[in-house]
């Protein structure tokens, strides 16, 4: 199939090229475009018929004209995979970016990826200790989960992601994760931050990086996460690794989707994003998990920045509908100087129930987590009331809860960027802080646990 070069471009619009052609071209087929100045661009077939082919060009359509030669490569987009990927840095289209050699392929894998048969999945249940109290106690991470960070511009989501990547481990085990890092449209500065941190801690040797930066072609971002996930699937399901995929920033990815939709003159959905964005995102996020008969796993940490800090914006909204919870970063806490500024109230780990308890974390985990959450939620609500009626109008219980909300933020949430708390330390800290509240108000704890763990009874 390869070889024949067509010069039949009729229209160019945004990232799309339209051409008449003569032989049958496959849907999804990859395409090379040779410009008259010798430059080579790549693309993929979005629509194909006897009369017309529409190609989406990854590097943008600048300088493409009717003389541009178009060659259809005879196959859909594939990534050469092998364990040589580990330790490498590739660009957003999968080419070496670190000056190293081409990847010698064990096999070539279709980057769209096939759906995991729901019947073949295994429910995730292994507790991952991140060393961050807010996460470990309140929105516990499970191996094989997809748990995004909902952040916004100017907030320290990258520090949190890196801290998780550095510290994440199974309890009582030093089995390590392979990190697959996927950058989509982030700045060079952000990238360098990630890279140097991975380098500093030696994690880079155990990582694969796919990098599309802010000044790289926008449309390429459509394939970058697919490459990263294809590499992750290979490492997890063919080579038995536990893989942690961090991808950032999903917002740039979605904007690239919107750009293509607009160029195709599709009927836009909410805020101009395509109507199929839910399905498109699901084809990425659902590539997390554990499957029967395979030793490895894929855990995903997508990072997205909420435009206008708005959680109902289509990007966080559709993500939240697909992922297994979310960790929400709060500007307010950040402004109070608290790191990590995780707002536990809208945060959620849907898989938490399956991985906490006596056998995995500790017998008091569930109740402590509920009580911490409830007390903090009430305390936060009282802040609003106090602003209206004044602190004197509060009864004893409410005063204690109000004070607790401050302690919660200052001592429970706050920790340093290299502070790696064990789950026992985190839970003990909870008890210590809850001791500021009369036990009779700690209604979510039972007497047995109070006897066992309350500082008054442990001394």
């Amino acid at each position: 199939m390869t070889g024949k070069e067509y010069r039949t471009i009729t229209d160019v619009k945004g990232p799309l090229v339209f051409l008449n052609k003569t032989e049958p071209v496959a849907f999804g087929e990859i395409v090379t475009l040779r410009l008259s100045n010798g430059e080579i661009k790549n693309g993929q077939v979005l629509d194909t018929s006897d009369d017309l082919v529409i190609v989406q060009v990854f590097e943008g359509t600048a300088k493409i004209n009717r003389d541009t030669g178009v060659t259809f490569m005879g196959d859909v987009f594939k990534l050469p995979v092998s364990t040589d990927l580990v330790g490498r840095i590739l660009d957003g289209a999968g080419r070496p970016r670190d000056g190293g050699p081409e990847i010698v392929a064990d096999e070539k894998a279709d980057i769209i990826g096939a759906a995991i048969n729901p019947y073949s999945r295994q429910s995730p249940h292994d507790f991952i200790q991140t060393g961050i109290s807010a996460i470990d106690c309140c929105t516990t991470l499970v191996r094989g989960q997809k748990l995004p960070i909902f952040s916004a511009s100017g907030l320290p989501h990258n520090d949190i992601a890196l801290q998780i990547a550095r510290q994440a481990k199974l309890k009582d085990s030093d089995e390590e994760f392979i990190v697959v890092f996927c950058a989509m449209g982030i700045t060079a500065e952000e990238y360098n931050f990630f890279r140097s941190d991975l380098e500093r801690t030696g994690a880079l040797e155990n990582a694969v990086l796919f990098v599309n930066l802010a000044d790289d072609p926008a449309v390429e971002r459509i394939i970058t996460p697919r490459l990263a996930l294809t590499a992750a699937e290979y490492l997890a399901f063919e080579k038995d690794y536990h893989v942690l995929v961090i991808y950032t920033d999903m917002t740039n990815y979605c904007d690239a989707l919107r750009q293509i939709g607009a160029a195709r003159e599709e009927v836009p959905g909410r805020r101009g994003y395509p109507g199929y964005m839910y399905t498109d995102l699901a084809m990425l996020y659902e590539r997390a998990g554990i499957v029967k008969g395979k030793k490895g796993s894929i855990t995903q940490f997508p990072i997205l920045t909420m435009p206008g800090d708005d959680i109902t914006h289509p990007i966080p909204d559709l993500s939240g509908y697909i992922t297994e919870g979310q960790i929400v970063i709060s500007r307010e806490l950040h402004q109070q100087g608290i790191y990590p500024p995780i707002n536990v109230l809208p945060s959620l780990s849907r898989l938490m129930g399956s991985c906490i308890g006596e056998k995995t974390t500790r017998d008091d985990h569930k109740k402590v987590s509920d009580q911490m959450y409830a007390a903090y939620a009430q305390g936060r609500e009282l802040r609003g009331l106090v602003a209206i009626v004044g602190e004197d109008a509060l009864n004893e219980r409410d005063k204690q809860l109000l004070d607790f909300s401050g302690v919660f933020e200052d001592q429970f949430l706050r920790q340093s960027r290299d502070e790696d708390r064990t789950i026992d330390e985190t839970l003990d800290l909870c008890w210590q802080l809850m001791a500021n509240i009369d036990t009779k108000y700690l209604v979510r704890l039972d007497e047995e646990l109070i006897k066992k763990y309350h500082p008054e009874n442990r001394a």
Partner: protein
Amino acid sequence: MSNEGVIYRISGPVVTAIGMNAAMYDVVRVGHEGLMGEVIELHGEKAVIQVYEDTSGIRPGEPVLNTEETLSVSLGPGLLTQIYDGIQRPLASLEEVMGVFITRGVDADAFDMEKTWTFEPQVAKGDELVSGQVFGHVQETETIIHKIMVPPGKGGKVKSIESGDFNNTQTVCVLEDGTELQMMQKWPVRSPRPFTQKYAPDTPLVTGMRILDFLFPLAKGGAAGIPGPFGSGKTVTQQSLAKYSDAQLVVYIGCGERGNEMTEVLDEFPHLIDPNTGKPLMNRTVMIANTSNMPVAAREASVYTGITIAEYFRDMGYDVALMADSTSRWAEAMREISSRLEEMPGEEGYPAYLSSRIAEFYERAGRVETLNGDDGSVTVIGAVSPPGGDISEPVSQGTLRIVKVFWGLDAGLARQRHFPAINWLNSYSLYPQSLDQWFRDNIAQDFPEIRTQISGLLQIEAELQEIVQLVGSDALPVDQQLTLEVARMIREFFLQQNGFDPVDAYCDIKLQYEMAKAILSFQEAAKTAMADGALLNDVVNVPARSNLMRGRFEEGYIERIEAMVKEMNEQIADAVEAN
């Protein structure tokens, strides 16, 4: 023209074929790999096809073959305990052929056609059979007898009938006119199965969830919508309904949602016991799983596959409950296909026929007289996922126009971990009128009145809360403070119900009634004691009240509750003297 054409165009899941004789909704095989598709539009020579599998790599010029059948499901013994994809391929068979990833171009029978079942005839030679009549039984699972019916449209005098072990395709009955009947029949998914007449529902679908049964009951044969933003509890509620509701059969459709949620059901249900029969839940369950990353056209088909299976069991005279999580994903699949067809969009890009499709789907719910004179029902409970949680959008609105029960999930309640996070102020059920007689006859004569009192207290609380927001609760007169405490008790003791609690997740309806009465009894006792000088604080804090409230987490509560209420009331009376 013949039944074979070639591909002219491919655009995602939509393929156009030319040169093929086709009718609307014909099932076709696309390309060299024979991918399954369905004709959804005709333009002169061109047939537009939605393809149920991934189309990458397919080229114009490849063949398209029209099977001239319509998209149908296979109905017969073997359906129960299965998990299917959107076009009724068993996921277990797909795993056998493809491994853990779903590739394409593989066909799979809906059930093992070789497997034999013990057929027990229910009619004899010479009997006259009408359409829909039951002519044999198969004990399919421990709890369910699969009734073998004459397919709609057929009938006649029995010439011969078998007894013993047969598979689904063997003839078990021959009619005088030569018609051969097998245990299995087929039915096109887009056509409702026929029945004699629809009845007005008069029996509740008892769910074991207090807020639903007590305040917003759903009728057997009714339809309910559960809209809510992500994380508000749509899936947990649907799963609780699948576990605990007193339907005889459950069809659970995971439509465009998470893979792991289906795995969870698969892991859990075989070990869970149906509180209504004491047998494993899986025995009464059929699952359809077309998750968010599976092909979008098959997602569109999945709700039809599910409801046709539900109707089939209804026709046997069973009460069937169908859950669809989430109907919004189905609507989005329609939108995606419609936009590929370049149809004129309606609101928010959805096709103009969205609301009529939604209405047609929910209309397939109902309590009916079946063709053979039995009474059966299909109850439909659809989750809705409105963008940003705002139900002014087309799918929510289209649903609310047709369903009679609205269980509105509320992000604020979920955030307070008040579960189920169903908002009691804006949810509604239009069924109480028709169900009240059942509640009076089967639970308690004054059941409707008790319900009115409970919901009245919640209304008053909402009004009082507005004042509290301005002045603090201490500024209210004590009788109103008591009302607030009673309402708090309703919320925390009655409305809240942890879907994962081993005991409280399911609450017998008789117990629901006793718990509601216990709250009103507390109110009475407290009023009396306070009139005699007891302090609100003392009344509220009597130890027996917290015992009563905690009691619901332990087995045997229904036997103990009366004594616990009595003890509470005595301690409250004592609070007068303590003062």
